[in-house]
């Protein structure tokens, strides 16, 4: 398909932008105060809705001309609920751990009065002489927000905010390019799939575009299921249009007319916001027939998955989308040549698609300059576990684990000792202290037995037992195994039973050999990605923390005091 009259597209976008601008300017208004409340799921869990209501009530009660706007996740989940106040004469100030009482006080003392309430300040959003800003935080030196740029700064339910802040400009640019040119840019950027495996995105698009057949599909994989991972959820809740924009560009590049977003139903807020975003995009002519006046037509439907972990695997996702049980199939043929209803189907992760817009907008070279040679761009991690600053971070690829955990995440709470970091969820591995200086990218992680996975990062300290962690993930994969192929169905069960015995102190050293051998075979013989990666937590913990396994078996003790059956109580007679 040839790109159609560039002037028409540019004019259509200009009209859209001029409609959106006034709404966006409201936020940047320099004549009155504006209050933003982070109310993504993480904020809501900490009470953001009550804070939002309290702020609105207080503003109304005092008859203030001050909009209170709901925004997404700023990434500082450890300090939720977050409130940002922009007041003329002050920098934008972010307050952390706000409750309803503090909220009322902020309106009274700061918006109405002139006391910025220093005691509740987390940081200012921009540098200034008055208040320490986020840029002074050690993490600011490492973070680079590409995908999370809008998160926490715009109202995700207002398409005008997205457009006003530069959104859909990349789509406008893309529609004026040849599809092949777009693929070339993505190829040149070196972008690799953010879903975990790290397959070159441009190559996938090329295969799908080159696959014979007029009917093609575009799917966004938002079936995030790793325990401890919430990057995709945060993006869909905080900036859904960035994903839609990436999808439309991808669909134009491969020549798809129909798209699906596969979101798990356990993300009700994400479902709501994506659905709303699709409706808004349709209304503005960004979806549907002749997008922005071009000859390209594309539509997106939202599909709610039922929360089976295996449905994040491409072939199982397609089976589920087709209405069957979510069981994986063998590959090749890959979905890019034969996927949904046997048609060429492009499946990309939420983060991959959110990256597409910035690449088209700023150029492939700009993107390729970020990160490492083999893994360009940024990585988004969800920090969880024993870490001070839980939340979302985005850093360039090649940042070391130590920088992410100790600088960005501010290290381990309560003065405890770092033991391991579990990266990549049930498919990833447990890495020890010696791996902390490893630059994180797709290849370095695979080399040491872990994998990027979707970006969950769970930090473990001296109170965590590595055998129990391996057992926990094995229990998860066994429960989530679909049961279709032998190695995954029975192999993960066997491994789980062996680990169960070890944590009970009822095992023998010989079992470790069987366990390691079985883990390797399950990895090599399983049908789909779930089984192929399920043994990783066991293999890496055996490799890096074998002494803990041996302690459990030989001495019947668990140094982390986590395995309850192995705890022995002694009465000290002299006390």
């Amino acid at each position, binding site marked *: 398909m040839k790109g159609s009259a560039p002037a028409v597209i540019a004019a259509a976008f200009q009209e859209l932008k001029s409609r959106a601008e006034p709404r966006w300017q409201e936020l940047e208004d320099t004549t009155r105060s504006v209050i933003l409340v982070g109310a993504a799921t993480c904020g809501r869990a900490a009470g953001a809705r009550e804070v939002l209501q309290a702020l609105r009530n207080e503003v109304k009660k005092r008859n203030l001309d001050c909009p209170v706007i709901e925004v997404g996740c700023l990434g500082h989940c450890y300090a939720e609920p977050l409130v940002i106040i922009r007041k003329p004469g002050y920098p934008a100030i972010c307050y952390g751990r706000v409750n309803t009482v503090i909220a009322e006080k902020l309106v009274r003392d700061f918006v109405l009065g002139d006391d910025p309430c220093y005691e509740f300040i987390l940081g200012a959003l921009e540098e200034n002489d008055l208040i320490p800003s986020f840029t002074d935080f050690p993490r600011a030196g490492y973070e680079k927000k590409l995908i999370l740029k809008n998160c926490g700064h715009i109202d995700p339910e207002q398409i005008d905010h997205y457009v006003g802040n530069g959104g859909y400009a990349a789509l406008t640019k893309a529609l004026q390019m040849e599809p092949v040119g777009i693929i070339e840019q993505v190829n040149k950027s070196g972008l690799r799939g953010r879903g975990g495996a790290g397959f070159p995105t441009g190559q996938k698009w090329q295969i799908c575009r080159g696959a014979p057949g007029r009917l093609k599909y575009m799917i966004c994989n938002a079936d995030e299921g790793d325990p401890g991972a919430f990057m995709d959820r945060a993006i869909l809740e905080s900036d859904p249009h960035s994903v839609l924009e990436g999808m439309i560009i991808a669909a134009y590049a491969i020549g798809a007319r129909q798209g699906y977003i596969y979101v798990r139903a356990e993300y009700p807020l994400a479902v709501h916001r994506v659905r709303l975003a699709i409706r808004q995009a349709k209304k503005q002519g960004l979806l549907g027939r002749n997008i922005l006046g071009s000859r390209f037509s594309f539509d997106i439907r939202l599909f709610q998955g039922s929360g*089976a972990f295996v449905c994040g695997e491409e072939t199982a996702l397609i089976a589920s989308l087709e209405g069957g*049980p979510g069981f994986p*199939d*063998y590959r090749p043929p890959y979905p890019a040549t034969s996927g949904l209803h046997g048609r060429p189907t492009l499946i990309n992760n939420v983060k991959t698609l959110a990256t597409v817009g910035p690449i088209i907008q700023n150029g492939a070279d700009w993107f390729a300059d970020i990160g490492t040679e083999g893994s360009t761009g940024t990585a988004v991690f969800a920090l969880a576990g024993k870490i001070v600053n839980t939340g979302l971070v985005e850093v360039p690829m090649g940042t070391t684990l130590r920088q992410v955990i100790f600088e960005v995440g501010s290290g381990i709470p309560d003065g405890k000792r770092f033991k391991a970091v579990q990266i990549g969820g049930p498919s990833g591995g447990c890495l020890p202290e010696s791996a902390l200086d490893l630059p994180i990218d797709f290849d370095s992680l695979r080399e040491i037995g872990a994998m990027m996975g979707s970006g969950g990062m769970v930090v473990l300290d001296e109170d965590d037992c590595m055998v129990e962690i391996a057992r926990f993930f094995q229990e998860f994969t*066994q*429960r*989530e*195994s*679909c*049961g*279709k*192929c*032998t*190695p995954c*169905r*029975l*192999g*993960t*069960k*066997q491994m789980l*039973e*062996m680990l169960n015995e070890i944590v009970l102190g009822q095992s023998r050293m010989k079992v470790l050999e*069987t366990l390691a*051998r*079985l883990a390797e*075979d*399950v990895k*090599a*013989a*399983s*049908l789909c990605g779930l089984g192929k990666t399920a043994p990783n937590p066991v293999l890496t913990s055996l490799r890096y923390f074998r002494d803990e396994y041996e302690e459990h078996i030989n001495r019947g003790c668990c140094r982390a005091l986590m395995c309850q059956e192995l705890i022995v109580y002694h009465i000290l007679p002299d006390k």
Partner: protein
Amino acid sequence: MRTISLTINDQRITAPDGDSLLWAALDNGIYIPNLCSLRDKPGPAASCRLCFVEVEGLSQPVPACTQQVREGMVVNTKGLAALRLAGTAFELLMASEPVTCGACLANRNCELQKIARHLHLSLKPRHLKRLLHDLPVDDTNPQFSYDPNKCVLCGRCVWVSRQKAGGVFGFANRGFERVMTNFYNGPMGEISGQVCCECVAVCPTGALVLKDEKL
């Protein structure tokens, strides 16, 4: 139809273009262990993971059922890496099988016994834990009896029943709990109408047995 010539274990064979490597081998008298494949079934289930072979040019063993024959393909069915994966899959199955051969109607006519002989493996793996399902035998259907404990979930009966008997069989549950069952996941006696003998006959083990044979 075009024929393809390839080499398996130093033996040159020919096979129709588009055939799977597994069936090309089996048709030429070269045995590769398998449970989930059927000659007429298009597209493999690739679920039993027993037919691993080594193909020249590929770094890892691959299931023969998922490979289409290619001109000049060189295949080794006896490579150690392939046999190890097949062996592990087989032992995993056997660790969850009752192995009551003496009392089983499929005795001497059982694929599992054949595979054990081929792979030189015991029917009772020593290193793995015995993980039995302990499900009741379903004798409620007048035509056949069903022992879910002996089922290896190959899916042969499911496929045949969908071709010939309107899909009376199917799978239920996930992971270790996965079972072959009927549409309502209820007693087999509640299946209305006749189940063709073929659905029962394709069972590679003694899980499905025709009652006539029993008498």
